[in-house]
């Protein structure tokens, strides 16, 4: 068993992990830093984010407005101390990106340009055409390459946290090329592994978004918070689930039903005119827009397509020049994957699983309940997004909390004596044995990975989709328990040690089954409707009983669901008003 020792180890090389790494590279050059990622960092799914990143910079904007949009967008489940801090630190974080070379789109005079986004009363979304995540990820990666105290573990799969003496002291990670598990030791660990959209069948998320970091933390006894809140983005391409950015509506695009009618005016987002108009109609929040689609569909006013019913996102009136300048990727994706040119045809879209508001429970300093373990970005739940995230807050979130988590981890690491070598090595050794016995050497299994994964996907969609009921959730809990049982009988075709990608899909599925259960049970326990969690049997928000974060704790059986209070500072719970 080989081991290596670091001061701070970052799991995940997407936007959050890279931002954390740069913070440690710039501010703590004496610390030895590791970035461990199952893919080369520039493959991380931050790359697919399109629309932009929110921060107050223009003179017509102010911090309170950004706070209020976020608080009301969260349906009052966001922690307001976190939201105030986020809004305060956001502008400098985006400016830092500019100073590192991020090619933000500009005004004619050279200043940063901003665009409108859903649920925001004032336009404040910085963007790089409609490839903002791509440009941010590559800027962060290229910037991080200059720091000599960062060691890169590309294509290493982390499967377990090493915990000894009540604190996290590293990870067990398999080098994918060799199949060898190593003990990567560290005085502090930061999880930045993104969400788990892949537990659902129809998602914008790439194949790698299987929630591994949530899985390893959950297994180490850390709670997953607010997992019932899963964001459906209202505009994905049917079939593939490819995202068509909210920026298409920010730039003036409209959503129409089969009669060409802007149906959102029937669902509390109107009036339709004047348009464009902030915090109304097509620039309402994502939860409300996805829910409106379901009602419109039930009324028989959607359009049928080979991959389910759709509505039309129409951007033709923007004209070819503006589409090419502001939305070139939307045009490219529509042409390649939907066979239509949005300059002359409307884009068929339907709601698609996009983002998890929930994640590893952290405090405002990105610390978890396990000493030495920190988390940030989509894998974490610092309670910025509450019950519904606003578009363009998450790219900013990964910067603000990626850097904060790095600073907190560095401070923790500097206070630790060292790591408990022998015991940690033994744990990693046991992990290698577990993987060999459970997967690689196993010969008598009967279940295919893809079969269980597909059934899990369908159970999630029918049990915990946009609208949920007691019956759908109870059934979902039952199906997932049965799938977990069947998973013990999984059989791999591939018994190789080197680059066994089937093994990684099996371990990812193992994590996803845990996460799926946390989502389903958290949703089952929350008997109210709030933000993205809508129950037809409890249609109203219930602040008396549920103005609380849920905490899913792993047990040998079903997850145990606890609650903790939401932090309210200046905005007492109120009604969410859009369109006016």
């Amino acid at each position: 068993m080989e081991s290596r020792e670091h001061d701070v180890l970052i799991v995940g090389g997407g936007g959050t992990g890279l931002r954390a790494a740069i913070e440690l590279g710039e501010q703590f050059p004496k610390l030895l830093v590791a970035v461990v990622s199952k893919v080369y960092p520039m493959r991380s799914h931050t790359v697919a984010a399109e629309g932009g990143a929110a921060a107050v910079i223009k003179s017509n904007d102010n911090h309170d407005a950004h706070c209020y949009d976020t608080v009301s967008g969260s349906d009052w489940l966001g922690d307001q101390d976190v939201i105030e801090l986020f809004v305060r630190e956001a502008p400098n974080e985006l400016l830092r990106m500019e100073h590192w070379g991020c090619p933000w789109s500009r005004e004619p005079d050279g200043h940063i340009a901003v665009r409108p986004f859903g649920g925001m009363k004032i336009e404040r979304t910085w963007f790089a055409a409609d490839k903002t995540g791509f440009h941010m990820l590559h800027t962060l990666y290229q910037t991080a390459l200059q720091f000599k105290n960062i060691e890169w573990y590309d294509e290493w799969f982390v499967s377990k946290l090493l915990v000894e003496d009540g604190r996290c002291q590293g990870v067990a990670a398999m080098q994918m090329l060799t199949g060898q598990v190593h003990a990567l030791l560290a005085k502090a660990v930061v999880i930045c592994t993104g969400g788990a959209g892949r537990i659902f069948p129809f998602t914008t998320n790439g194949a790698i978004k299987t929630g591994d970091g949530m899985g390893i933390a959950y297994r180490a006894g850390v709670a997953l918070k607010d997992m019932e809140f899963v964001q459906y983005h209202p505009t994905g391409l049917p079939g593939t689930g490819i995202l068509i950015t909210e920026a298409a509506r920010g730039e003036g695009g409209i959503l129409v039903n089969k009669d060409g009618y802007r149906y959102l005016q029937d669902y509390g987002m109107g009036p339709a005119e004047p348009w464009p108009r902030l915090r109304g109609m097509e620039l309402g929040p994502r939860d409300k827009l996805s829910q409106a689609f379901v009602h419109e569909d039930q009324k028989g006013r959607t359009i049928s397509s080979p991959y389910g019913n759709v509505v039309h996102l129409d951007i033709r009136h923007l004209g070819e020049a503006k589409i090419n300048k502001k939305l070139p990727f939307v045009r490219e994706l529509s042409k390649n994957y939907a066979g239509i040119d949005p300059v002359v045809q409307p884009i068929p879209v339907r709601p698609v699983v996009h983002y998890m508001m929930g994640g590893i429970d952290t405090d405002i300093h990105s610390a978890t309940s396990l000493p030495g373990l920190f988390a940030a970005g989509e894998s974490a739940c610092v309670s910025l997004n509450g019950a519904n995230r606003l578009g363009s807050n998450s790219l900013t979130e990964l910067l603000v909390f990626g850097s904060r988590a790095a600073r907190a981890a560095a401070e923790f690491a500097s206070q630790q004596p060292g790591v408990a070598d022998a015991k940690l090595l033994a744990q990693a050794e046991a992990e290698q044995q577990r993987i060999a016995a459970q997967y690689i050497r196993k010969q008598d299994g009967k279940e295919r990975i893809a079969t269980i994964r597909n059934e899990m996907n369908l159970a999630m969609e029918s049990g915990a989709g946009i609208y949920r009921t007691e019956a759908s959730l109870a059934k979902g809990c039952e199906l997932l328990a049965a799938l977990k049982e069947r998973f013990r009988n999984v059989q791999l075709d591939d018994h190789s040690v080197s680059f066994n990608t089937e093994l990684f899909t099996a371990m990812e599925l193992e994590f996803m089954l845990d996460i799926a259960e946390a989502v389903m049970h958290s949703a089952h326990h929350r008997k109210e409707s709030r933000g993205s969690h809508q129950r037809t049997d409890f249609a109203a928000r219930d602040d008396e009983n549920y103005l609380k974060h849920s905490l899913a704790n792993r047990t040998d059986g079903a997850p145990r669901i606890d609650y903790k209070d939401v932090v309210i500072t200046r905005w007492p719970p109120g009604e969410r008003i859009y369109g006016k």
Partner: protein
Amino acid sequence: MANSESGGATMRLEVFRYSPEQGGEPRFQSYEVPFREDWVVLDALNYIKDQLDGTLTYRWSCRMGVCGSCGMMVNGVPKLSCAAFLRDYHPNPIRVEPLENFPVLRDLVFNLDAFLDKLKTVQPWLVRQEKKPLSEGEYLQTPAQHAQFKEFSMCINCMLCYAACPQMGLEPDFIGPAAIALAQRYNLDSRDQGRDQRQEVVASHEGIWDCTFVGECSVVCPKHVDPAGAIQQAKLASTIDWFQEVLWPFGARK
């Protein structure tokens, strides 16, 4: 993808297989997959992995042409397999191989560490002699200044250009199209002041002068980055440097 009708039509994929661990020579293995109008080569590979043969090994993630993971040779041409549609080849079989000019690790997975080392040598980050404090706001950059480097900033590091470049096969130390394009991306950025320190690598023998200007890199680029154009620009700029140094050694440069 389940509810698209294939009408029972199928298609043959001949896939390159090689596992050093299992021994044996590289070979091709044939698989019959359903033919669907809207399937890409990557969908067919996923079908094989899920339903027929879990040992088939390849990289993929976003399936929307932006993460750069799934580059392969498709009928001898470097392609993103998530953007190569079966319908463009049907009814003929499709031959899938790992990208050329890279060491194969297993099946369609190749080693790209050498590229990452080269990328690092061109210092692909913004260099400033004097850094502006955040309190003074952004570096101003007009849309016209942005347009100077925009296309070179679109590189997704998919490695198709390295697979297409005949010089890479002959001269593995060549820094290659993507890394040079990324060096130019920063050289041409109005905020950057690092061209001189990049020149040592970019203008070296393994840099731009290794390129014989075949231009295949720009042909295969899925993001229209035009690395061949970047290399031409860099050659021209280096030549001007040379003239200025040699012919006007005491004059003010730039």
